[in-house]
């Protein structure tokens, strides 16, 4: 909770920076603030009991803290990456403010206990992102991205709200716990429109985590937005959305799983197929990563699906989102440096093995991790998913997952092949700014560490 307050405070501070002229100081301050937030977060973790605030509007229990920990850490890395991105930009502070506000929304999503906070969290997270996506004013792609995101986002939240309304109508409350209780008590005399409500909310959440068939915005928006914003979307936003999804459907509607599990399975299957197969066709790395993020979403959804039976999968999904966030932060970071000249296609990576071996190595690790190959974090992530899935009746999904992830290997390898095999058209080295490379190396190391000693993370959470 303190973390959340600190971050929102930082947002305000950022806006003051313009006025009181301490732009230069801003980034260090923000980083400090984030570290502080993380520290508080961690303390709350140590104290262990889950405290709920404002009669149960929001409560930081262990999963919430874990997720927000991931989000804050990612944000930390993101800001370091971002430091040279905006330095020429006049709207530095606005950007930072918006990102911080978005973070506030994300943190709310990890901890909401009430439909209100869910809804507000989503909007607080999204609206700044609409703007950020469109933030390259002169770049029409960026405009389009922002606009698409906005329109479809609001459309989706329309469905979300309708769902909330129906659920409210059926249960007479917005409070997650009350709803859960109500469901468990009068399971049989629930009106039919309650189910509709649940389904509509699932659709909306699927939109947020960009699962097919609600994924259409993702590739376009990811491609159109500035690279770093894309990085933000694919890490922070996704993690938050998943935290929300999990909380909503496992805590809120967990008792109703027979209602939505089947549909979710279908959604997962569709996402796996669409994402991997179209990713295989992309020529732009950024877009490829967008599709890959969809397929990873499908994997995480699998955990939610499986969670109905097994218990270890809460840390499974946390581990997964951590692995994914770390991996894609470094991937996008590298992409950001490689595509400085505006070329975001695979051939931008040609001969990177020679031009900048360090970047190439890190990218390799990132790709292997995303592809789920030992000894990287991604492998254990996939492994957890498999272990959780194998007990469920959805074994066919497992097989599908394997088939598609073989396809996945295909497009991740394309990058590696480009780096080590293809001749570079321009032999000039890729300049990397110090802090940036620091982040990339750090994330790489974390990826490998998580692959070697997953216990360090996986063992952490006992719920």
């Amino acid at each position, binding site marked *: 909770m303190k973390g959340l307050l600190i971050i929102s405070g930082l947002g305000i501070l950022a806006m003051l920076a313009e006025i009181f002229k301490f732009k230069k100081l801003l980034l260090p301050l923000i980083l400090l603030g984030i570290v502080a937030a993380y520290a508080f977060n961690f303390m709350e973790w140590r104290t262990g009991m889950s405290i709920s605030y404002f009669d149960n509007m929001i409560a930081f229990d262990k999963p919430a803290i874990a997720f927000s920990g991931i989000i804050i850490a990612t944000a930390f890395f993101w800001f370091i990456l971002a430091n040279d991105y905006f330095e020429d930009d006049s709207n530095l502070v606005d950007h930072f403010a918006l990102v911080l506000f978005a973070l506030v929304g994300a943190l709310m999503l990890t901890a909401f206990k009430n439909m209100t906070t869910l809804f507000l969290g989503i909007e607080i997270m999204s609206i700044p992102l609409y703007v950020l996506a469109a933030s390259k004013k002169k770049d029409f792609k960026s405009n389009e991205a922002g606009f698409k995101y906005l329109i479809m986002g609001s459309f*989706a939240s329309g469905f979300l709200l309708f769902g909330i309304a129906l659920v409210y109508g059926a249960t007479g409350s917005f409070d997650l716990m009350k709803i859960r209780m109500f469901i468990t008590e009068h399971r049989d005399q629930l009106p039919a429109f309650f189910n509709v409500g649940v389904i509509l909310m699932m659709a909306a959440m699927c939109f947020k985590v960009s699962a097919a068939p609600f994924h*259409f915005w993702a590739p376009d928006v990811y491609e159109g937005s500035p690279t770093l914003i894309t990085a933000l979307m694919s890490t922070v936003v996704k993690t938050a959305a998943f935290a929300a999804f999990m909380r909503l459907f496992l805590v809120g509607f967990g008792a109703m799983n027979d209602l939505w599990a089947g549909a979710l399975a279908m959604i997962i299957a569709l996402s796996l197929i669409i994402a991997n197969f179209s990713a295989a066709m992309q020529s732009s790395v950024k877009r490829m990563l967008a599709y890959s993020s969809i397929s990873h979403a499908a994997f995480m959804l699998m955990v939610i699906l499986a969670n109905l039976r097994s218990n270890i999968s809460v840390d499974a999904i946390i581990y997964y989102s951590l692995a994914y966030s770390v991996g894609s932060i470094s991937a996008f970071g590298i992409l950001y440096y490689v595509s400085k000249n505006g070329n975001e296609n695979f051939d931008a990576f040609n001969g990177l093995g020679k031009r900048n071996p360090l970047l190439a190595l890190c990218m390799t690790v990132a790709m292997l991790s995303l592809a789920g190959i030992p000894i990287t974090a991604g492998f254990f992530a996939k492994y957890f998913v498999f272990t959780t899935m194998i007990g469920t009746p959805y074994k066919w999904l497992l097989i599908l997952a394997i088939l598609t992830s073989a396809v996945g290997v295909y497009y991740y390898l394309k990058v590696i092949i480009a780096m080590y095999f293809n001749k570079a058209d321009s032999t000039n080295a890729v300049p990397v700014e110090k802090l940036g490379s620091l982040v990339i190396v750090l994330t790489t190391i974390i990826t490998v560490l998580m692959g070697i000693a997953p216990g360090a993370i996986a063992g952490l959470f006992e719920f």
Partner: protein
Amino acid sequence: MIKLTALIPLFPLLGFLINGFFGKKMSKGLSGTIASVCILASFIVSAMVFVDLQSSTQKSHIINLFSWINSDTLTIPFAFLVDPLSAVFLLIITGIGFLIHVYSTGYMHDDEGFARFFTYLNLFVFFMLLLVLGNNYLIMFVGWEGVGLCSYLLIGFWFKNTAFNDAARKAFVMNRIGDLGFLLGIILIFVTFGSISFNEVFQKAGTVSTPVITSIALLLFIGAMGKSAQIPLYTWLPDAMAGPTPVSALIHAATMVTAGIYMVVRSNVFYSISEVASETVGVVGVATALFAATIGLFQNDIKKILAYSTVSQLGLMFLGLGVGAYSSAVFHVTTHAFFKALLFLGAGSVIHAMGGEQDIRKMGGLSGKIKITFITMLLGTIAISGIPPFSGFFSKDEILAHTYEHSKVLWLLGMIASMLTAFYMFRLLFLTFFGKFRGTHEQEHHLHESPSSMTVPLIVLAILSVIGGALGFPEFWHMPNWMAHHLDPIIVRKDPSMLSHETEWMLMGLAVAGALAMIWFTYQLFIKNRVLPAEKEAQLKPWQRLIYNKYYVDELYDAVIRKPLDFMSTVFHKFFDLQVIDGIVNGVGASVRMIGASVRYFQTGNIGFYVMSMSMGVVLIILLTFLIK
């Protein structure tokens, strides 16, 4: 002394190693001497072993060297077995081997691969000794394949000549076909008896059902077919004449090709139990004998003729085995080793004299020029044609007698075969040594007798092939049939000849008469009215042409086996592998692209469409969850 048996193969191995590693650096004389001396040494040792064996009452001695392959119940020691049979073969191999080594020192003298030649030759002797010494089938198999290898190396000795290499390869592969049969036989033996060492197996042989024994015997016989060039695996032997003549003499006449006979005699237990098997052996044998003999009639290459005669003689031996005349077969092996080696070496000497010419149409009237060769070869020819009292007569007669007793038909065929032998051998003799010289001039005044290193072995062999018959006089002459007695311990089923003396005499008479008739006929043909073999194939009558072309068997095999194999290979590779299987694999990749493309198509970029599909998604989900159930 018997304990020293291990030395017998050791000496040739030693020679092999010495020549192999230092042959290039040594002078030809030295390396030749070393090689010959090694063989001589092992000949002496085997002679001593032989004597010991004679004197000792115990007839089979096992010398264990080390345990070779163990797999729990299957234990294969590297062990030797000395018993009358192996003793005989030891003597033949080392003895004739030694003579041929000596001969080769002269014959190969101008060849730059001199050392290499003796290396191979020693290696061959080593493996041959392993073959006959082995105490179990697998050691025998080791020697078996080893000699195959050496024959491969020696046939392709002049490795620059592609035809020779092809011949060598053919020999090896055909042998391998046989070897597979042999190997499976061995395995079956193991599976049946739980062991593969001779004594145990033969003791248990009685306890096993006949069909199994039959299959064992047949599988083994396949091996024999390959090695001893029986139908259908005989075609490699004539081609094998590509090798240097001493090789033909040693490997492809005296020793290696008789390995099949050795093996059958060794496992005579099986054959005497299984009627079917022994019948097969006999029939195949006689068929080969006739077939090869007929081919021999029209050959013009001096070595080819001898080769076919070898095939047919081997056929005769198998006939003998088939009718259960094991000792006679071994007897014939021995005598055949004498005179066939003699003939080959003689032929070699002729070729030597003719400066490499092998076509008998280009020879003639050599009798005057190269006397020793002529006389020795004459003796050899008489011996092989079965004229008493030469060695060939006795061995052949013994076989035929047993055959007669066994079945008249086989006897008749065998008879014909041996008469044909007489014909083509004398044809060879007459065309080569009589009449007037038909070669070129430089050949004519190049003619000269070979050096003593070559002639001495000829003489020795000639003597042997004259008196060799003494090893086995017919019983009814009331003289000791030494061979029969000697091999007595290892042969289970003995059927003392039931024939009355009259019949025996009659058979002998017939045989001799037939042979003489043939000789007379040949004499008429080639000496009196100087008929010469046709220069060109075109002049032959169709049936002659058929025979002249060896019944087109090679072509047949080519069409039935080699070409289809190559064809299949190409088809499998080009079509099946690259198109079908790999096609499927790549097809997966292609389908990925296809699906990708089609899925991609939905990403139109149009907001309206996106929204539509989202709503459609909602519709579907709701349908899925409610209206379905």
